[in-house]
């Protein structure tokens, strides 16, 4: 498992396409418990990201690639998700600073740093019904697979499975962070939009970088709202 900046860039492009495809659905999820803009926000941000990458060129330094992604998200998304996704990538950038290749351990520390950044910024814990519910288990599963000496495919697959379980787990939760928390008990029964977009991010990694075929992961079903 070693990925170059070009590989990482393919992942980011795939994520942009995925967000564009699920924009309306993500906004609908946000309409139910937030303010109906998560799809619009992420779509605006990811379009800006790929425009930037296509403009500026990807280069070889994975750290600077992540930094470009993070900075662009921060400066184009706004809302809660802008700084959170931005921080995720900016911290991954610090972890991958100067690297031209990312191996299993490299990815694991990047994820770890990114997730820590998101939690430091947003103060959310598992169970608060946020993107953290997808991100933390995914990162942990990735690291565990790498620790067991697993392949790239195994690590990404484990992460995607964990992210998928994480996003599903948000459905019954009562939100304690973000806009959805205003709803109190009424937030239960709805899938968190941020956790859903995070799941899409990791799923894209599994496909593009882990080479895990889409069908294996029942792609896309996590964007369907699950009623309880």
């Amino acid at each position: 498992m070693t990925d170059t900046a070009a590989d990482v860039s393919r992942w980011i492009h795939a994520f942009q396409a995925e967000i564009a495809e699920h924009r309306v659905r993500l906004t609908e999820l946000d309409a139910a418990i937030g303010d109906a803009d998560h799809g619009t926000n992420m779509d605006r941000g990811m379009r800006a990201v790929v425009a930037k990458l296509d403009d500026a060129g990807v280069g070889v330094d994975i750290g600077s690639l992540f930094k470009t992604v993070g900075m662009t998200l921060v400066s184009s998304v706004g809302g809660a998700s802008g700084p959170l996704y931005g921080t995720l990538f900016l911290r991954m950038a610090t972890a991958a600073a100067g690297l031209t290749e990312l191996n299993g351990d490299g990815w694991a520390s990047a994820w770890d740093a990114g997730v820590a950044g998101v939690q430091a910024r947003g103060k959310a814990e598992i169970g608060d019904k946020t993107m953290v519910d997808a991100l933390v288990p995914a990162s942990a599963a990735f690291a565990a697979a790498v620790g067991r000496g697993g392949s790239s495919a195994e690590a990404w697959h484990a992460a995607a499975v964990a992210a998928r379980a994480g996003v599903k787990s948000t459905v019954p939760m009562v939100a304690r962070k973000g806009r959805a928390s205003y709803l109190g008990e009424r937030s239960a029964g709805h899938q968190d939009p941020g956790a859903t977009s995070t799941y899409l991010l990791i799923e894209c990694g599994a496909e593009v970088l882990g080479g895990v075929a889409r069908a294996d992961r029942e792609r896309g079903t996590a964007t369907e709202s699950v009623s309880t």
Partner: protein
Amino acid sequence: MKKLINLPENVVREELEGIALAHADLVRVSLDPYMVIRNDAPVQGKVGLVSGGGSGHEPMHGGFVGLGMLDAACPGEVFTSPTPDQILAATKAVDGGAGVLHIVKNYTGDILNFEMAAELAREEGIEVEAVVVADDVAVKDSLYTAGRRGVGATVLAEKLCGAAAENGLGLKQVADVCRHVDEFGRSMGMALTSCVPPSAGRATFELADDEMEIGIGIHGEPGRERMKLASAHDIVGMLAGALVEDLPFRAGDEVLAFVNGLGGTPLIELYVVYRELDRFLTDKGIIIGRNLVGSYITSLEMAGCSITLLKMDADMTALWDAPVKTAGLRWGA
């Protein structure tokens, strides 16, 4: 969707262009990133005041930029917080060497973006304090929520801090004024109709012809309770009752009473509401020292109102009375 606009995606930019054209005597407007900046900024030696948030709440915040109020406002897209680089640019543009205060409404998005901006500004050597305003009593303030939303008290904070900064107070003191407003200000709103975010193109929620929502947020967030439409008297009883209990406001307290329209409610109704509020407070022995009646923090075309009460003292009253010269609030200048 019935609006006086062109393309929904251009509303904010076109609004800002309109503000630039209409108020060139007061402010300069940047379109990249979006900023409304006091004409004479940075004012050397004066604490700079920056606020911002999603658009759709006009005149807040862009209409409050000028002498005696904000030095800069950072408008985001409709109902979407501005980004850190926007806030950073505004912070730099208004830094007159005495530090910059960020007045932040308590929404996760606003908090996070302002936090990042403050970090970036500090890295560039600008002294920044941020005060979060969280006055909406409709939301339980607990570990289990993102806390109370920042609403009407923000308008008052911007005016009062603006006067304090104009008087030459230091950053910490100006921030203390904002903290005072946050500590002693309480708000609650209600809606007769929903707002319609331009990009969504449809109402955020549906209310029947005989229903209202008590405790509504300024982005159409659900309130405490949906109920049958009541009289102005009963509505004020519910809103002001919740406020008075919450602080609590007590007999003998002097307050600034602020009746705010949410965008689709005309002034004639706001005065009917103000009359009820005056009676309600007088009944409880609470004294209205100052008042404000009008649409100052809106939610697009939502019909409804909010009430804000802020406990006042002589210092606060003097700050309130000080000159202010902005498109949205103006006296003494």
